[in-house]
């Protein structure tokens, strides 16, 4: 297999995530609807919503500065860039040489920074509320996320996402350990908070006063809204991909042989499907937390991640 095909295949991965993102969101919504005895919209609805919003005129608040206009582009491009750092079907990622998982954390923080600014910028009371809540949540979510990624990195001996995924995929049964399970649960909890899912934030609410993510983007419309929606569904897909590839490390292809690649694609889609089902069931079976309980919730994620890290340390490094 020549390097050229490998490179092309690698570059195809972020694009795959981008194309899949609305479908993942549509599937999660459809599943939740079914679990709630509703019919729900088609799983393709997010695509139509995106197309609709892209065609629509954009209305901007009179008090808005260029920050408001720039935020959707910044948020989307940073999220999309983050996709270039993670392995999807193959253990290699297109920009894996340029940034490791720490860079990934910061690339995910960048959209939040811009969206929080835009929320304040629009001059509506809800935007400011959303921004302040998002900052509160992320200040608890980020340490937990870093800790989870470290626990995976310790197992592989590298903070690079590709190396970690490769080491895990190659490691066979020896990667199994308490750290894997603890890390998986911790990252799942962080994903719920980071992606604005129940029980931290309710993506389907119409109550302005309880919103977090929705409150920040309340003033956006048209193309800006489309980009922000796409960015947030991409973020969800990215987190599910991390869960699938760092903590369920089976079936990933090391090279680009057609057979291995096909197997890897099937395994990836199966894992994503299972994660979406889990997400929907969790979201259906729990009510939203009181806002001030969210730090406790993320504290649990942090402690689990820390325990995972320690157990890895004890098992692998003999500390």
């Amino acid at each position, binding site marked *: 297999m020549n390097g050229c095909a490998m490179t092309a295949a690698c570059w195809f991965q972020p694009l795959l995530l981008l194309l899949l993102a609305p479908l993942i969101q549509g599937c999660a919504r459809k599943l939740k609807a079914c679990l*709630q005895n509703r019919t729900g919209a088609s799983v393709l609805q997010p695509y139509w919503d995106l197309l609709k919003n892209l065609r629509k005129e954009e209305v901007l608040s009179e008090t808005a500065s260029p920050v408001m206009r720039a935020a959707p582009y910044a948020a989307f491009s940073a999220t999309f860039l983050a996709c270039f750092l993670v392995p999807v079907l193959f253990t290699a990622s297109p920009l894996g040489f340029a940034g490791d998982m720490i860079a990934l954390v910061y690339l995910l923080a960048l959209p939040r920074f811009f969206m929080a600014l835009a929320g304040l910028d629009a001059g509506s*009371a809800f935007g400011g*509320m959303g921004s302040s809540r998002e900052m509160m949540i992320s200040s608890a979510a980020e340490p937990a996320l870093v800790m989870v990624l470290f626990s995976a990195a310790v197992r592989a001996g590298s903070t690079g996402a590709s190396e970690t995924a490769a080491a895990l995929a190659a490691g066979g049964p020896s990667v199994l350990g308490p750290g894997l399970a603890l890390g998986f649960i911790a990252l799942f909890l962080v994903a719920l908070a980071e992606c604005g899912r129940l029980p931290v934030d309710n993506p389907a*609410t119409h109550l302005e006063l309880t919103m977090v993510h929705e409150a920040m983007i309340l003033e956006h419309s048209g193309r800006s809204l489309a980009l922000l929606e796409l960015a947030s569904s991409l973020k969800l897909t990215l987190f599910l991909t991390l869960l699938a590839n760092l903590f369920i490390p089976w079936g990933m292809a090391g090279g680009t042989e057609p057979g291995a690649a096909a197997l890897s694609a099937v395994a990836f889609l199966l894992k994503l499907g299972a994660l979406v089902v889990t997400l929907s069931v969790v979201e259906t079976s729990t009510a939203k937390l*009181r806002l001030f309980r969210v730090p406790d919730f993320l504290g649990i994620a942090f402690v689990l991640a820390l325990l995972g890290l320690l157990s890895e340390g004890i098992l692998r490094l003999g500390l």
Partner: protein
Amino acid sequence: MVDPELQTVPRDRLAAACRTLAGRTGSRLASVVVTDERSFSDAFTIHYVFSLPKDHRYACVAADLPGKDPCFASLTPFVPGASLFEREAREFFGLVPLGHPDPRPLLLHELWPQGTHPLRRDFKAPALPAASPSAAYAFQRVGGEGVFEIPVGPVHAGIIEPGHFRFSVAGEPIINLELRLGWVHKGIEKHAEGRNLPEALRLAERVSGDASFSHGLAFCQAAERIAGAQVPPRARWLRAVFGELERLYNHLGDIAGIATDVGFPFGAAQMLLLRERVLQRNGALCGHRLLRGVLRPGGVVMDLSGPAAAELKAFLARLLADFTEVERLYLETDSLMDRVEGTGAVSKRVAEDLGAVGPAARASGVDEDLRRDQPYAAYAELGVQAQVREEGDVAARMLVKAAEFRESVSLISRALDLMPEGPCSAELGAPPSGSALGWAESPRGEVLHWLALDAQGRVSRLKVKSPSFSNWPLLNWAVQGNIVPDFPLINKSFNLSYSGNDR
């Protein structure tokens, strides 16, 4: 005047007489009714209606206020629950409550020309909007470092009625909340003037959609009291059945709303399914899901046949079994119960001082239920247990409604068994002129209609007091010490009607 007991006093003794009544145990100011009598006696008459549940009656103090100088001593400094009623009297009749602490308008917004009082008999509809809008409404300001105002509404992100909420917050905790309502003022009381009873009944049913039957019932009972008519026994029993059917679907919807607002749509969907079944049953029984058009002055327009009653009983048994299952889902979902317990607590003292009614008052330990204390329809024979809790929080309001749901199912089943045979309507004939009070315990609490008829049997004054009008001020107290994201949940636990408040 047939009912309630009326005591007419001179203007300067009005406040004193009211304070005497207000000081009696369990006494609650239920309504303040103003009538414009200037064409007969050159005076306005103001009636303070008190509910005396311990004596099983309403009592009323009235005074004439001269048309040229319609001022009176405000009762608000002594009875906080009088505040909104007196502001309403000032706005709609131009009366002057001396010593009232709040000079702001209540329901008529800035675009109404100043000095227009729509419920005066000589009122001519002005051109709206006014040439010079009155000064902007002055919200209470909270100063201090880090205190922000959050204006919410009147247009909301969801499909709900319009209301404006002004929060003063320091971070997330709420320091102060002010409401501004009146966005759906329809002038129903004015529209009712000059109409005959059937027409006015149709209007009364439209005060608040989900309490159509209760409002209609209160209206009919007032009309029947004026006419001195006896309603046939079967009609009284049927009225109790329909009244409880209304309570069933309302309480199911209210409990579902709690689940929606804590982000537990699974539980909400299950409860809404039950509500829909009740609504469909209502539609099948009488042709209207919200039970409109069932009532007429003198009885009800339709009977329940034997098979229909048996079917209804079987339906209720299935409904209760399903409800028990869904209720258990609610009680066993810790994340839901954690959100509702301790949230939005209202003390008994606040509920009593503000004159709260219905399940909201009962959840705060106020042991009042019109169906038991001042029975109408067939409730005296049925015997109602009032469902009371002490905590006063969102959970208590939810649990009171759940308990009332069970009580309603059992009331309907008993009524279907015990209902006597006979006609279900009597002719009212030409009613004499006069006035009377009609009441009903709607799902939200006390509905009070003051009806006055002229010599032609036409409505000369209809004063509607909805339970929402009594309970909205509770919300300001319920949110104290809570955080902004819990407000929608607290609001939903009261589930008050904007339309009923604004009329």
